[in-house]
């Protein structure tokens, strides 16, 4: 996590709110709405209480920084970085083509979703996807046992180089071209590498705060990376921060859904991505998860978790309407499809140990026109006002 970010203390008892926030959705929403005012008012105050700084606040800092960067770049023309070797358009086109192939190979539904975007955006999203996937495979792939922390440092160095216009290989070159065309900040990428480092060490998460940070690292960053590519609608009256917050919420919601879907699979690898304190509150332990039996305690626990994930989806929905018209359909489609996974977990009687919750093809196809309908909703000033409150 960037040490460069200035810590701002928000003395409003947020630690307690974050622990019990999941029980009272309203409390959470209100608290999050309050944060912007909190930030502005105490921006110059000294560090109040470092221990009270929750992950949500730290992540919010990053969102603010990214939003500020985008605004700055709108004012000053983006300096075109001179990239050596990038005058070779054939190589670049081939690189983008290969990015598309890799995306189609590993994430078929996502690839189909990208086909709903404009060609330029599609290529940019592919390049980002391939970088994220390669980073993930460094620690999670078939050859992950040979990766040392030093390798991740080198990988981060390569990332910095490509942002400066010196990509190392062809996939880096595609990403370098993407970041030269869209105002993407380097921080989410660095945070993702940080998340990989975290994953090397940690296999248990004590509370939701830790889990939130992890979800930010591996999925929230993706949301932040893709907003500059998707673009915010010019007629939108929402602030840049709110759109980024919504993208962040979408990433978190997706990751929480993944976690809830893959409880059994992760348990088999010895990992539990559910907050330990919430498990204890529900009367469950790691043993119950490893045993893999669906009990009533498990059902009620899962209900709460699913409720929280749905809350994040609701947060995200507010921001999708503010995106560029051409990008709303694919984003809506992916949001609705992922949300349906939660429904399918419920339909499996909360058995995520042995049953894989997936959405059937028919239902997927049916979601597309629904997403199209919702994408037609234009950003209204009323919606923007609601978001600002």
């Amino acid at each position: 996590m960037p040490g460069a970010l200035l810590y701002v203390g928000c003395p409003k008892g947020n630690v307690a709110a974050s622990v019990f926030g999941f029980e009272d959705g309203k409390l959470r929403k209100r608290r999050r709405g309050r944060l912007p005012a909190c930030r502005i008012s105490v921006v110059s105050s000294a560090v109040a209480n470092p221990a009270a700084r929750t992950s949500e606040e730290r992540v919010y800092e990053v969102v603010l920084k990214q939003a500020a960067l985008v605004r700055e770049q709108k004012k000053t023309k983006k300096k075109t970085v001179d990239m050596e070797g990038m005058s070779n358009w054939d190589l670049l086109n081939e690189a983008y083509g290969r990015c598309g192939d890799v995306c189609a190979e590993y994430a078929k539904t996502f690839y189909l979703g990208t086909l709903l975007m404009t060609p330029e955006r599609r290529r940019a999203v592919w390049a980002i996807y391939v970088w994220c996937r390669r980073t993930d495979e460094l620690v999670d792939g078939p050859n992950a046992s040979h990766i040392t922390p030093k390798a991740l440092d080198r990988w981060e160095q390569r990332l910095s180089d490509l942002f400066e216009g010196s990509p190392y290989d062809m996939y880096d070159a595609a990403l370098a071209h993407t970041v030269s065309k869209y105002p993407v900040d380097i921080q989410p990428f660095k945070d993702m590498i940080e998340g990989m480092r975290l994953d090397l060490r940690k296999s248990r998460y004590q509370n939701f705060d830790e889990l939130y940070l992890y979800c930010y690292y591996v999925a929230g960053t993706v949301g932040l990376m893709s907003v500059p590519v998707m673009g915010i609608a010019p007629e939108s009256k929402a602030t840049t921060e709110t759109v980024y917050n919504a993208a962040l919420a979408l990433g978190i919601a997706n990751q929480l859904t993944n976690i809830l879907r893959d409880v059994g699979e992760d348990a088999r690898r010895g990992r539990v991505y559910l907050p330990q304190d919430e498990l204890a509150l529900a009367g469950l332990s790691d043993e119950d998860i490893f045993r893999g039996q669906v009990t009533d305690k498990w059902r009620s626990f899962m209900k709460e978790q699913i409720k929280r994930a749905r809350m994040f989806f609701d947060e995200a929905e507010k921001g999708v309407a503010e995106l560029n018209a051409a990008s709303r359909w694919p984003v809506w489609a992916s949001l609705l499809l992922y949300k349906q996974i939660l429904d399918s977990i419920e339909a499996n009687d909360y058995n995520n140990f042995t049953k894989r919750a997936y959405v059937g093809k028919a239902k997927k196809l049916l979601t597309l026109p629904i997403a199209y309908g919702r994408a037609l909703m234009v950003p209204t000033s009323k919606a923007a006002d609601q978001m600002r409150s």
Partner: protein
Amino acid sequence: MICLGRTLAVSFPSTSLLCCPCKSPYSGTEKFRYGKFPPFLRPNWRLMASEPGSSSLAGSVDSDSPDINASAGFCIIEGPETVQDFAKMELQEIQDNIRSRRNKIFLHMEEVRRLRIQQRIKSAEMGILNEQQENELPNFPSFIPFLPPLSSENLRVYYATCFSLIAGIIIFGGLLAPTLELKLGLGGTSYVDFIQTMHLPMQLSQVDPIVASFSGGAVGVISALMVVEINNVKQQEHKRCKYCLGTGYLACARCANTGALVLIEPVSTMNGGDKPLSTPKTVRCSNCSGSGKVMCPTCLCTGMAMASEHDPRIDPFD
């Protein structure tokens, strides 16, 4: 594990199992791990004296350390300034280093084998079930699509099905069909009538039965073999690394796959404007050491989706 230190001085290419095939005139050039061998087999002081030449390798490649990856310098992911490409070594040194490392890999494999044996013994003692069935032939997928995977029990079933099908077809064609005077043309017509109704040239009806059965059989066999091959290709493709498409390398972005960087020197146009421009000088690209390709970090130059230590690393110049 005796390595023929003394006899190496005679420099015969020994290919015996555990010995380093040493073709160099140096005696005992191989750098063995100290603890295991008697003093006379310890690394040759002569080679150690030439070590300073290789100490320019960022001071880190200590080949005495058992775990190269853990030592300070070496790292799987390389950056443009940090490629440990051993460029400062002499040719003979490089050959010796290659030989010593390959020997080490060989010896490591043997150690892995012995460790595995101990692992089996100890887990059997502790009653831990070995999950992998390493007894008979393992399961492997059939090359023919839609058929279940093969194993030794399955193979018997495959044989039985195969023979019975062939026998059945022969009996059908040889005995049943003529006896029942089966006419398999449309609406029960004979071959000649079938040709006539299809308005095909009449010479087809006069095809010799031997020729007809041979052609039919050959077509069937050839198409079956084609299907098997195509399926094989698909399965092999499945196993190859998707990022580099099995080549093990990705195009170097710095030199755009050419291997050479063009040095752009600003030319003054103030004086001497009538001299023609000389061709720009090129320098070898430092990213890829001139090969135009860089390592694919996903498959580690093996080209396989799941690399193991057995997979050979692909050379960039192939």
